[in-house]
């Protein structure tokens, strides 16, 4: 018989406000096997834990039930405390009476009754708990970073700095991501390239960092400490080891009509190209969709002009396999497609642009060499209208937009408006806003400067329709404070389109079994306390893949993420989850049902000798589980027809005891 102690937490008033904690402690104290029951204000606090440890010593407890917040919150805390007193950590069970009781029920009698029932279920389970010993598994001392934008680069640099190897997998031909496309950065107005490109070079030169650009993750298997990934290195049709990045091929290529994605399609590039001058790796890539040689077999000019013989039209994709101890997701974002908001005329006029397109139009390395010219007729725009929140902050029923605030638009629009007024003082700039959101260091001051020093017209209202006629963009908008409808003849309209996670995020989330929210942002293990970890062990989150962020936030999160990864890689062994499946060989009939449902291949069969009646020996085929590979899902336990397979920590008997307690 177990000697069980029950500890009911008040959680301040979070629990005690709705649940009569004294009554719960008293009721649970009457349960068979419970030798001690008490309540305390904050069980998770140092003094709360001391109280628990003292009780374990004093009452020689063999099992512990804590009625508190979700086990996802403090299970580990209480297990650790119990272990310090020599009680096996898996003899501790949590009854969740905060998230599942006090926070959702108002009536005290009802909530108290439910808390008691959940406490009884936990007690019933502890009666059947057995001490479990966690095994250990080795750690591969290398990290994988998926995505080579500023988030991925920063995380990789920090991990490498600590002395561990890092691979960056980037799907485009160069690292740099969105930040490489930006002109200036708020609120300091320093040039994005000037602060980003040195980091790109650092990453390239760091001997601990391998950059797999123009590559995609194909599959991932394994678990924390022991991931195996297959990486597809797409054929560039250029030998990376031979190409010097001289760029002659990109000048001589006769196919000049390929939309330049780096410049948001505002100009064209060649079929063989280097995305931008500071690309890393600085290697040419042939775009097979446009290359005349690849399509018709006639041309070959790049091959002729290449001094190092790097061009290889027959190159094939290769798939490499690498092992990792931890994986970082840094897949970033894209602006939504503005074409669904055609009331702003994005599809009708080239002079309606998105903010990212404007970045390229203002960038010295962009299609206009930094001179702000209208795409339609290459003239200076004199009246510019900015529209905020295009596709952000929409109702959940809205089919075009996103329910969240994209967070960066208010600030980059203030930046754009300010830069334009500074460079072209004869330009009238209007910003239509719903709210101006500037929480950040020196952010509101920055916005106020746009208004007060630079004379940007901020108008509380929205644009309803943009009509292009005779070279002007007729903007119809509301001015809510004046209760007017405005009609502005503009030359350029800039849409601050919402940002959304990169399209690859969803399939990546599935591949990594890392959970995502309804907007395809990766979910963190805890929104406040574990913001850079996925709930899936060994998967870490860096940058906008987790939620909208600006550059300073992205960089701090990227470094935080690196710290967490280093925490894993620095260990030689990791403790495994002891709640794994186990087969009772005496009951196993060797049917293979379990083997078929195991997603990890953790179950194997072997012939074993068993003693039969009358001193005979029987040879039977039986299953056994590799505890280092088993992840503890339990699929096999249900498939097993003979009841041989069971899951430690969640055994058939334990769960049925819980069912009984709840239905009593």
């Amino acid at each position, binding site marked *: 018989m177990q000697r069980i102690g029950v500890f009911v937490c008040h959680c301040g008033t979070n629990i005690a406000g709705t649940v009569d904690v004294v009554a719960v402690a008293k009721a649970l104290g009457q349960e068979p096997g419970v030798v001690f029951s008490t309540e305390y204000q904050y069980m998770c606090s140092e003094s709360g834990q001391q109280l628990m440890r003292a009780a374990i010593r004093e009452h020689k407890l063999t099992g512990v039930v804590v009625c508190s917040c979700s086990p996802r919150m403090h299970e580990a805390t209480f297990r650790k405390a119990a272990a310090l007193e020599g009680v096996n950590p898996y003899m501790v069970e949590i009854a969740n009476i905060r998230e599942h009781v006090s926070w959702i029920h108002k009536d005290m009698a009802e909530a108290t009754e439910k808390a008691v029932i959940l406490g009884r279920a936990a007690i019933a389970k502890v009666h059947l708990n057995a001490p479990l010993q966690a095994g250990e598994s080795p750690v591969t001392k290398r990290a994988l970073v998926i995505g080579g934008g500023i988030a991925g680069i920063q995380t990789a640099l920090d991990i490498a700095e600590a002395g561990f190897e890092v691979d960056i997998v980037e799907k485009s031909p160069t690292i740099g991501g969105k930040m490489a496309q930006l002109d200036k950065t708020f609120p300091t107005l320093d040039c994005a390239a000037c602060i980003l490109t040195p980091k790109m070079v650092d990453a390239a030169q760091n001997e601990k960092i391998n950059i797999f650009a123009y590559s995609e993750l194909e599959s991932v298997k394994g678990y924390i400490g022991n991931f195996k990934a297959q990486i597809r290195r797409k054929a560039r049709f250029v030998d990376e080891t031979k190409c010097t990045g001289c760029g002659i091929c990109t000048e001589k290529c006769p196919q000049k009509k390929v939309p330049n994605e780096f410049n948001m399609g505002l100009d064209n590039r060649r079929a063989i190209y280097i995305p931008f001058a500071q690309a890393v790796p600085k290697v040419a890539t042939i775009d097979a969709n446009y290359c005349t040689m690849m399509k018709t077999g006639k041309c070959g000019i790049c091959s002729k002009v290449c001094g190092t013989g790097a061009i290889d039209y027959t190159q094939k994709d290769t798939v490499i396999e690498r092992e990792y101890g931890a994986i970082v997701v840094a897949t970033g974002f894209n602006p939504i497609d503005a074409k669904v908001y055609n009331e702003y005329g994005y599809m009708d006029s080239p002079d309606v642009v998105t903010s990212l397109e404007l970045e390229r139009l203002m960038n010295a390395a962009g299609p206009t060499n930094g001179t702000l010219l209208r795409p339609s007729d290459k003239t200076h725009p004199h009246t510019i209208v900015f529209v905020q929140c295009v596709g952000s902050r929409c109702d959940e029923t809205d089919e075009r937009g996103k329910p969240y605030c994209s967070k960066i638009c208010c600030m980059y629009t203030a930046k754009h408006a300010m830069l334009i007024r500074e460079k072209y003082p004869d330009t009238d700039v209007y910003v239509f806003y*719903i709210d101006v959101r500037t929480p950040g260091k020196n952010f509101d001051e920055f916005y106020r400067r746009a208004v007060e020093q630079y004379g940007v017209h901020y108008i509380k209202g*929205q644009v309803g329709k943009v009509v292009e006629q005779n070279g002007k963009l007729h903007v*119809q908008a509301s001015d809510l404070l004046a209760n007017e409808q405005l009609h502005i003849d503009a030359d350029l309209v800039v849409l601050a389109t919402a940002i959304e996670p990169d399209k690859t995020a969803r399939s990546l989330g599935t591949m990594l079994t890392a959970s995502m929210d309804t907007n395809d942002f990766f979910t963190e293990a805890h929104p406040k306390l574990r913001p850079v970890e996925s709930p899936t062990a060994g998967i870490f989150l860096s940058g906008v893949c987790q939620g909208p962020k600006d550059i300073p936030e992205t960089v701090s999160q990227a470094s935080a993420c690196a710290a967490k990864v280093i925490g894993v890689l620095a260990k030689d062994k990791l403790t495994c989850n002891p709640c794994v499946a186990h087969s009772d060989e005496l009951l196993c009939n060797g049917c293979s049902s379990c083997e078929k449902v195991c997603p990890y291949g953790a179950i194997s069969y072997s012939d074993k000798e068993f003693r039969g009646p009358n001193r005979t020996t029987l040879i039977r085929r039986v299953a056994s589980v590799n505890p280092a590979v088993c992840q503890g899902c339990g699929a096999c336990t249900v498939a097993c027809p003979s009841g041989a397979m069971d899951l430690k920590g969640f055994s058939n008997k334990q769960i049925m005891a819980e069912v009984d307690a709840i239905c009593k």
Partner: protein
Amino acid sequence: MSHGNNAAEQVLRSSGVDVRKCMRCGKCTATCPAFDEMEYHPHQFVYMVEKGEIDKLAASPSIYKCLSCFACVERCPRGVEPAKLVEAVRLAVIRKQGMNHLATDAIPALLDEEMPQQALVSALRKYSK
């Protein structure tokens, strides 16, 4: 704020609109083709219904100026559907005895040779019980 007044509740019920969804962006008013003709504009309908100021709206010619073009309904990012509020207030008025905006016999004088039946029927539906 006069929450819970009967006229406002009737308008909310009959329109099916949830005025609390509004985030005051003003896109409805920005897109409204009848802005110049209206005394109260679409965003004001939303706000004034929320405040319970139905009497002011009911007395305003604005309720006969909405073109029912659904531009505000289509473009509202919050799914508020301001046009339905205009219709609900208008109905609350013309459903009362003797409150037709246009009497049936006054209409023929407004018509011309080519005007399609559709215009006439629409006007009858919108302006009278």
